[in-house]
Structures are given as C-alpha cells and as structure tokens.
C-alpha cells in the first residue's frame, strides 16, 4: 500500500490559537505552541510532523483559513 505523507503550514500570524485544528487532527500531529505570535496567541504547529497524512481536516475546520496543506505519495 502506498504510504501518504503530508505537511501542514500554519500562517503563524493569522492563527488565533482556537485549537479546533488540534481537535480535528486524527493523527495527533498538531499542537499549540508554547510561544506566542505578535498578537499573543499560542499558534498551532506540527508537533509530530512524521505522522501527518495530509487529510486536510485541520484546514477544513480552521475558522481563520491560516492552514495550507501539502500531500505526497511515497
């Protein structure tokens, strides 16, 4: 079976740290960063990038549309 690898790019400044993407991720890839962006929000980032399958669930639920998703078959 072909393995699928994905990658998530979060627009750090656009993220408001609502954590809906963290909740939506089926592979527990995303988490909220301990650091904050310039507006004081704990932005989302890939804590566990190896597990990402590029399902796009995080991007679909993001209310601020700050997530871009890439996917490749390996």
């Amino acid at each position, binding site marked *: 079976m072909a393995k699928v690898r994905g990658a998530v790019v979060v627009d750090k400044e656009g993220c408001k740290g*609502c*954590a809906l993407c963290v909740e939506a991720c089926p592979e527990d890839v995303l988490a909220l960063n301990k650091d904050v962006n310039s507006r004081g929000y704990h932005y989302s980032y890939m804590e566990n990038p190896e597990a990402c399958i590029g399902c796009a669930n995080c991007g*679909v*639920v*993001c209310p*601020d549309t700050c997530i*871009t*998703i*890439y*996917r490749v078959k390996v």
Partner: protein
Amino acid sequence: MDIKEIIKPENLVYSKSKVQIDTITHYCPGCTHGVVHKLISELIDEMGIQEKTVGVAPVGCAVFAYNYIDIDWQEAAHGRAPAVATGIVRLNPDKFVFAYQGDGDLASIGAGEIIHACNRGENILVVFINNGIYGMTGGQMAPTTIENMVTSTTPCGRDHERNGYPLKMTDLVAQLPGTSYVTRQSAQTAASVRKCKRALKKGIQNVLDKKGTSFVEVVSTCNSGWKLTPVQANKWMEENMFPYYPLGDMKDSEKGEPVSNN
C-alpha cells in the same frame, strides 16, 4: 522524507481561496463565521460566479463581511437583508444574490422580512448563522436561545414562562411555498463542514437555476458569548443545541409546493 520536500506547489491539496481576502478577521478565535465565510468563498471560486455575486451583509458580527470576501456587497439595516436582496435581485435578475444573517438579525427584528421574502419566493440564498445569542452586543438572549441557556439577560437560564420558547426559523420557512431548499447544517467537525459546503453549493445552484428561495441554517457557536473555549463550545453545541435544532434537510422541492417534505 523531509518536510521541505513535501512543501512544493505540485503537492498542494488545500489552501485559502482566491476569493477570500488575505487579511486577519475580527472574529473571536474559533468563531463559526470564519468557517462559513471560507465555504462561501470557496464555492464562489469553484463555481466561477465571483463577478455576478452580490452579498447582503447583516448587522451583527458579520457586518464586516465585505472586508473578507472579494465580491460586491451591500450593507442592510438591522434585519432587512432579505428586503434589500429582493430589490437587488429584482433589478438584476442575472446576479446571484445572497443574504448572510445571524439569529439576532434574522429571527427577531428581521422576522417579518425573512418570512415575506421566503413567502414571495425571491430568488435568493439566505445563510442563517444560529448561535442562540446576540454575540456582538455582549451575549444577550436571542429568540433562538434554547431553554435554560444562561445569557447576560437571562442569568438564571431562559424560562419559557417568562421569555417564551426558542424560535425555529428554519422549520417556519420550510412551511412556506416560496422556498425550494431549506436545510439545517453545522460546522464543528471536518465532516460537518464538508456537508455544510455541499448544502451551500446546492443552495447556490438552486438560486442560479431560479428555483426560489434557498435557506441554509448553520447551527453555530459563540464561544466568547457562551463563556467557553472553542473546543468546549463545540461540545456544548452538540450536546444541547442539536437535540432542539436537529440537523438535516427540511425541504428539497420546487417552488410552489406548499408543504415541507417532513
């Protein structure tokens, strides 16, 4: 494989729509307005109707929608979005016109306008964001506030003896002969967002086919008004709002049929 090898333009599967303006919204973190704005932008982009779309913005949190979606907009007085949309679509029958309203706007001060616009079967799409509260003005009770829900004007919870019963606008307009497609959706999980997008697409298509009024309610959260985190607000909505506002299509027929399907 390194992450940098995956992040290439040819591997792109999901990104912001071109119709959505690249700016930071004023909405609170986790607000459902952002999701619905995104879905509308994506559909306008996919269906290639950016040039012929006119949105009518409400009074409420979505009053600044014109800053976020790159189409023609008209701002309406409180609750009057369906009346303004009627005027626009009657003068420009080839345009795709939609009214975007919240529950404080549509279900209280605009209740008359929406009932009559739907009854006349105006060729518009109405997007109804129902979060059961007046979010913009500080979380007061709205007509759609469910029973026992605590708001800033009902600190002991909504009591039907004192405050009346929650108003199910979608069920009401489904009874009117002018409507063609009436549905209630939500946007809290990836599956429900995708389902909501299909419903909005059907609503837009019905308007383009001149079938009559399409009405899409999105049961939403107002986490700042409900005093919950975005994740808790979604759970609260699933547990408390969905039993009173069950999701699904209420009506899917041609204009002129008097009774809803259910």
